């Protein structure tokens, strides 16, 4: 028995599973021309054909979805779901404003990427790297598995459910989240979790230390021990904040890398850092 998502256009559950898998290919040919535009189109092409049996309509729908597109990839299926729902609506209603479809896509790209980046780069990637680091430092081959699992479980779940939610009630759902300020609130809360994790990671993994020591009246005086008794991990924090202020000054990453490598080299030779 075939399970239908939309009986009137003969769209089956299988079609949606296909969109899910094709959505992974979205950036396979990322270009400055259309960014992920073609990748977006190929993921929903088979459904567009079902909605528009007539060639002229089908051509227009393809052209609509070949427009430049760019967003965080994991929640992108949400917009695919919304697009399909809108295409179906466009078919039913006379005088449907087709421009609205791309307008909605463009309008959703930004806020959805904001939430997506906060979760996928700010939390999942950070936790995945952080958890795997400990294993990797011991040379334990389980490390890549830990990293991939921690990141990909939310990655796969988000793709699957966002596609379903997007189709079923995406536009209203997102519109409501945005006007009520919930979307901002969720992004901010994701930021809280991200920042707590970032603080923890820097203290745990950023290893800047000072090997300097002095002999004073026969007693050895180790600078790092004194620093540790004031605030452990003070040096890494200072260095990270210096790097941060250079980034905020608008220096390019190449320039900062070069300058820090040089300063670090000199400090290392002088045994102030190491």
């Amino acid at each position, binding site marked *: 028995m075939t399970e239908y998502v939309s009986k009137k256009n003969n769209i089956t559950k299988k079609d949606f599973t296909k969109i899910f898998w094709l959505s992974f*290919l979205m950036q*396979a*040919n*990322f*270009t*400055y*021309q*259309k*960014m992920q535009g*073609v990748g977006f189109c190929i993921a929903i*092409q088979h459904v567009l054909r079902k909605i528009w049996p007539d060639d002229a309509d*089908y051509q227009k729908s*393809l*052209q609509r979805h070949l427009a430049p597109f760019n967003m965080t990839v994991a929640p992108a299926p949400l917009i695919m779901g919304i697009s399909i729902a809108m295409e179906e609506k466009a078919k039913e209603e006379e005088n449907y404003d087709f421009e609205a479809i791309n307008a909605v896509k463009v309008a959703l790209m930004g806020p959805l990427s904001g939430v997506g980046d906060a979760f*996928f780069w700010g939390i999942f990637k950070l*936790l995945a790297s952080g958890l*795997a*680091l400990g294993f*990797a430092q011991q040379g334990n*081959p389980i*490390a*890549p598995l830990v*990293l991939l699992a921690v*990141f*990909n479980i939310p*990655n796969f779940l988000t793709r699957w459910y966002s596609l379903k939610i997007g189709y079923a009630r995406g536009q209203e759902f997102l519109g409501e989240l945005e006007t009520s*300020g919930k979307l*901002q*609130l969720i992004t*901010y*809360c994701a*930021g*809280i*979790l991200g*920042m*707590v*994790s*970032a*603080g*923890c*990671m*820097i*203290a*745990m993994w950023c*290893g800047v230390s000072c090997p300097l020591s002095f002999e004073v009246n026969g007693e050895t005086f180790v600078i790092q021990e004194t620093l540790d008794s004031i605030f452990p991990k003070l040096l890494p*924090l200072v260095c*990270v904040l*210096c*790097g941060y202020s250079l*980034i905020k000054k608008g220096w390019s990453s190449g320039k*900062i*890398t070069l300058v820090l*490598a040089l*300063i*670090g*080299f000199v400090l*290392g*030779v002088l045994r102030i*850092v*190491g």
Partner: protein
Amino acid sequence: MSFIQMVLLAAACAFCRMEGGWFGECKFRQPICTSFFVGLILGNIPEALKIGAQFEMIWMGTAGIGPVAHLDVTTGGFLGTVVALVSGKGFEAAMLFALPASMIMQFAESLWNTAFGYFDVKIDNDVANGVYNKVFSTFMIAAALRVLVEFAVVLAWLLAAGAFSEAMSVEFPAWLENGLGGAGQLLNSYGFAMLLSIMMDTELIPFFMIGYTLAAFAGTAYNMIGIGVIGLALAWIYYIIANKFGGKKAVAAAADEWED
């Protein structure tokens, strides 16, 4: 490195680069994953993973956000790990090779992003002329070509990495070792600075302070899971308060609504 090893390495590196395109950014690109493949092929997984962990840290903050080409941590970390294993010199030598490589590959990426736009134009023309069944195949041909290009370029890089490793395998004087060590530590902190810069918001500073202080004083008594739970609890508390009493963000959004 034997020739077969080099071909395998180039294939593995191209595979890891494919993840962003073919497997939906599933993070094979991270140095911890790429170094695993290097270790597998060169026969020293534990050592490779230790190098990978170091690269993971100096590039902690590189994120693929926005439409521009990003620092190529995949190819850079991969080549760096190869250099470390072949020269036996460890992370400092690896870094000397990987940092410029990752920047050059970032530039190469932006060239390909431009050149492969040719296929976008071709697809547009096909659709305009009523050829609909070629959209997918043209897209996949372009995608496959990109993998081949990556494979060829990495193969060339590996030749350079081999020569570089040989030059590196001499005994370093102590001052050079110290200097490279110092450079490594500062670059490590820069990676974390980048991480801060993509997430920082003045209002989030207190949460950063909580995470940092807990881990700094407790040391290894805490781990990421413990801190993650504390972070989740804090986020949750904020969410509840904001929802109940209209937190700052919610109020700001409501104000926006009035203006509309």
